[in-house]
């Protein structure tokens, strides 16, 4: 299902090895593709132009070149070495040249050219021949990118599997003695029929999705978008959604024209002239790579920015005249092409030639320009930016432009952008409203709901805020986070209650006074845990923290002589305040706790906000994006990571104090599930967004509360797990994506951009690889997300 969505702008012009063993052979698979590109509307919706499209047609790509060199320098002593490669293609003539790179897009599995491992060449030859011969189009289509006819069957299979899983999840439970009884219950009979119907419905919807969306959603989106335009003035329309919408509308318009013969009608639907013209006038120009290359320093960047802005106001337009000048006529005769689109729009689906023409006056030669390739990931994050926390008009502007604008506002765009930027007061009003809602909410609900708001929402919001520092700011995965919560709670019990644990302090403190100690204890525990492991890579940290959480849980459960063991801790005195003549003791009523927690949450949010904007916060952002680069630029990575760890831990120490003084607790509170729950909240709410994280706690735990009779508590984590996966795939930045900040005014130079995620990089369609790294025109705030945490 997920795989069928358009894979975004084309990845990297990489061609599989084996096709072009020599320069002459490199052309045949290429030839159909450039001829295909000038007419994007002809490309079906689900199949975006991928490989080969951006390839410079004249020169071999880097990958080709490398493969050529490798093939030439292959093991000459091995008779099976290089010939095997050529045999792979020449022995299989019908498949190799006719493979459409856009659909299969995978390297032909030709045999390795390396030396054989098991010696004798004869069986190896046979095997090679078999492998090469086995790569029939059928097989390749089966395993490759979903395209063509087989994809709908695969999609059907996916829908069936997903519906069956959904049936399992929501169905009756099974039993050890009658295993899969629940499955039988949920997949047979009426439920089975429902599941089947759902699967078919999903399949149909998916299959007809482009049509459905174009014919139904397009209208509503059209209306909302124009309303937004009207309200907010200029907006960056380069996002994938808008691009897709434009493409769709253009197609619709073309169809309309064909049907009615009316020329302008369809186009009017697409872009109402007024807003289009205004957009064309107002849209800021993104810095191109060429500009980036011209700007070595910040001051230079700012001045260059202003220059670019002014110059871009005039020269950055694609006008038909310019294109004619350059000897290139835009290959589509769309009515809306005659009026220039704002630059920065539609770049990714324009053919390279047009874009070159557009940038003709750039001083850098075209061969220097690396095309900015946006992976799907970046697109998603881009579309996630204008979520509620970020004022839409501002976040839509590339942050490079913004940060530059703060220093040297470009004359051309300032007047236009100023009204769109909401003042501090609107944000302040929003926050005040949210706070008022939070204050008023518990007064309107039952006591049970109030308890839930304290125990489930408030505490977990605090925990999530702490984990957000670790996961969201510093980009470290902590799976044993709840252990610090436990440490805070047990420390409080140790310090403030003489008889709640077998092991206790010789004195007795008010829990409020125990708070700093608990904080400190949790922070020290964080440092002790992080010290040895933070020097290592993220995955190790994750699994070590996983183990740490389990160890703490185990110790709390088993060390009867110290913690009281599994029966838990009773009798920690409630919080009380004795200042001067004022005495107040928190009782059983959840309301005071709620307001205390609310105050703490607000306090922590404010403190973390300040921290995030500080030098430390910038260091975290740098580490999150690229640890090696951060270290190279002087960030003390280990220290900063330790700091994040300690801060996160101390926030959960806070929560631990509240937990200990509010109610009894036992080690079950600190199980793995709780850690995962906090993580889920952070992921769901939005890593790095304080408000999002709190909102995540409210939504998830609130849902859990409201559905407590429908969904058994034990099953909750099935949904949470599914939710985490879905969020990671579809909306990786969470419900409220953090506002892009520190995205940097300087675009990353092409050579410094990191490779794709796993260091594997490689499946050509998956991500831009080393040969052509992403850079240049991707707005810096998107680049941040795309790069963070990637493998060095």
């Amino acid at each position, binding site marked *: 299902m997920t795989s069928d969505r358009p894979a975004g702008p084309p990845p990297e012009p990489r061609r599989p090895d084996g096709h072009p063993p020599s320069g002459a052979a490199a052309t045949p698979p290429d030839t159909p593709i450039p001829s295909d590109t000038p007419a994007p509307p002809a490309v079906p919706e689900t199949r975006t132009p991928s490989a080969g499209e951006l390839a410079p047609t004249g020169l071999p790509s880097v990958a080709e070149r490398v493969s050529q060199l490798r093939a030439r320098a292959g093991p000459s002593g091995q008779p099976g070495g290089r010939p095997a490669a050529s045999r792979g293609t020449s022995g299989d003539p019908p498949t190799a040249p006719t493979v459409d790179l856009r659909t299969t897009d995978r390297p032909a599995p030709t045999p390795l050219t390396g030396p054989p491992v098991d010696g004798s060449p004869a069986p190896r030859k046979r095997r090679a021949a078999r492998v090469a011969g086995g790569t029939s189009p059928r097989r390749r289509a089966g395993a490759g990118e979903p395209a063509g006819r087989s994809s709908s069957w695969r999609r059907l299979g996916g829908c069936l599997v997903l519906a069956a899983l959904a049936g399992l999840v929501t169905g009756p439970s099974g039993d050890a003695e009658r295993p*899969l009884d629940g499955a039988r219950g949920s997949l047979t009979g009426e439920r089975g029929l429902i599941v089947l119907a759902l699967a078919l419905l999903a399949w149909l919807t998916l299959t007809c999705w482009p049509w459905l969306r174009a014919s139904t959603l397009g209208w509503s989106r059209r209306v909302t978008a124009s309303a937004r335009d009207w309200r907010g003035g200029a907006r960056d329309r380069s996002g994938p959604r808008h691009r897709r919408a434009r493409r769709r509308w253009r197609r619709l318009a073309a169809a309309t024209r064909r049907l009615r013969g009316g020329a302008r009608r369809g186009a009017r639907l697409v872009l109402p002239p007024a807003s289009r013209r205004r957009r064309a006038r107002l849209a800021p120009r993104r810095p191109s790579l060429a500009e980036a290359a011209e700007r070595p320093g910040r001051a230079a960047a700012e001045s260059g920015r202003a220059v670019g802005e002014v110059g871009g106001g005039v020269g950055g337009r694609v006008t038909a005249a310019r294109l004619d000048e350059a000897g290139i006529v835009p290959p589509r005769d769309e009515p809306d092409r005659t009026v220039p689109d704002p630059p920065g729009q539609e770049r990714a689906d324009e053919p390279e030639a047009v874009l070159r023409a557009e940038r003709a006056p750039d001083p850098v030669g075209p061969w220097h320009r690396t095309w900015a390739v946006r992976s799907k990931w970046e697109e998603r994050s881009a579309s996630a930016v204008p979520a509620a926390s970020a004022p839409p008009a501002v976040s839509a502007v590339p942050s490079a432009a913004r940060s530059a604008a703060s220093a040297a506002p470009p004359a051309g765009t300032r007047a236009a952008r100023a009204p769109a930027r909401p003042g501090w007061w609107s944000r302040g009003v929003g926050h005040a409203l949210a706070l008022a809602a939070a204050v008023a909410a518990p007064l309107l609900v039952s006591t049970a709901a109030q308890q839930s708001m304290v125990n489930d929402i408030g505490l977990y919001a605090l925990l999530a805020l702490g984990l957000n520092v670790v996961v969201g700011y510093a980009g470290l995965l902590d799976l044993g986070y709840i252990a610090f919560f436990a440490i805070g709670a047990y420390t409080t019990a140790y310090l403030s209650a003489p008889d709640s644990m077998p092991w206790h302090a010789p004195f007795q403190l008010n829990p409020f006074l125990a708070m700093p100690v608990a904080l400190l204890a949790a922070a020290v525990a964080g440092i002790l845990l992080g010290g040895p492991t933070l020097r290592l890579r993220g995955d190790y940290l994750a699994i070590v923290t996983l183990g740490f959480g389990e*160890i703490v849980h185990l110790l709390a459960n088993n060390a009867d002589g110290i913690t009281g063991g599994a029966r838990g801790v009773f009798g920690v005195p409630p919080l009380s305040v004795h200042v001067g003549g004022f005495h107040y003791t928190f009782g059983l009523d959840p309301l005071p706790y709620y307001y205390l927690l609310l105050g703490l949450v607000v306090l922590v949010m404010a403190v973390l906000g300040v921290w995030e904007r500080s030098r430390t916060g910038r260091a975290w952002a740098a580490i999150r994006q690229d640890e090696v680069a951060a270290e190279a630029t002087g960030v003390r990575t280990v220290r900063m990571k330790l700091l994040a760890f300690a801060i996160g831990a101390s926030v959960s120490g806070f929560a631990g104090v509240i937990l200990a003084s509010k109610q009894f607790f036992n080690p079950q509170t600190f199980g793995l599930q709780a850690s995962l729950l906090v993580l889920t909240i952070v992921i769901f709410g939005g890593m790095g967004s304080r408000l999002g994280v709190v909102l995540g706690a409210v939504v998830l735990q609130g849902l859990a509360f409201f559905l407590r009779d429908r969904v058994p508590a034990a099953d909750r984590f099935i949904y949470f797990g599914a939710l*985490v996966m879905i969020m990671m795939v579809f909306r990786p930045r969470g419900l409220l994506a953090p506002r892009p900040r520190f995205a940097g005014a300087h675009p990353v130079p092409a050579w410094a951009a990191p490779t794709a*995620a796993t260091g*594997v990089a490689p*499946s050509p369609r998956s991500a831009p690889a080393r040969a052509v790294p992403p850079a240049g025109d991707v707005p810096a705030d998107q680049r941040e*997300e795309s790069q963070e*945490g990637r493998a060095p």
Partner: protein
Amino acid sequence: MGDPVAQLAIDGLTVGALYAVIALGYTLVYGVLQLINFAHGEVFMLGAFGGLYAARGVLPGGDGAPGGLASVGLVAIGIAAGGLAGAVAALGLERAAYRPLRRRGAPRLAYLISAIGASMFAFNLAGKEFGRQNVPVPDLFTNGTLLRVAGAEISTQTVVIAATALAMLLAVDHLVSATRLGQSIRAVAEDAECATLHGVDVDRVIVAAFVLGGMLAGAGGFLYAMTFNASYTMGFVPGIKAFTAAVLGGIGNVRGAVLGGLLLGLVESFGGYLLDAAYKDVIAFAVLIAVLLVRPTGLLGARLGRAA
């Protein structure tokens, strides 16, 4: 029990062989993806349940354990079903949690989180479907003392587990070092881009690594369940221990994983005897921390892939 040393050694080696089998899954996936598969423990658990119910399904009625050839067949069926279930689970895992992200070129953190999500999903769903208590594997053979070596009793179960694990380890070692698939796995582990250039289908190799690791984990899960029963949470602790074993031997290194597993089994067995059996997990964890501190590349270093 006279001399505990031999007994402890044998117990440790048996458990260690299981750890090694699971650790191979971590190592293979790490090799090709440079990512730790957090949901591997769940694959292990699902394999155990698959094997358990398959064996229970074909178990003839009547009281007492079957003997002779029937036992062998039942154990084989259990292992095969466990391996199959593990392979299917691993395949689904790759499809659902890894592939969509790989297509998008997601940052590394996203993979970890998505695998955690898959793990949550899988083991809670298993808890729902299979019940949340321990499920014993029915007796497939008469478990008794088969032979005595240096005062240690070696039970039939030990022999079965050790022999199967050994066979699987040898098979995987052969597969990785001497077959075409193994060659491409190693190629991808060494340099995925380069492997792509040489015509290795990286996607397929990744799937193969997942499936291979899943098969091993599933079969190992069944063997583990014969000793320790199956439950929906059974994947967690062995998962961490197997990861420790993989790190101990050098993650990304197939033979290192085997060595690490056996060593960890021994350490745990003796340590549990010397301290307290309840702290076995703590010992394994301490070993992990120590290895990461002292020698993050593990004992044999990383040969299959790049280490930390």
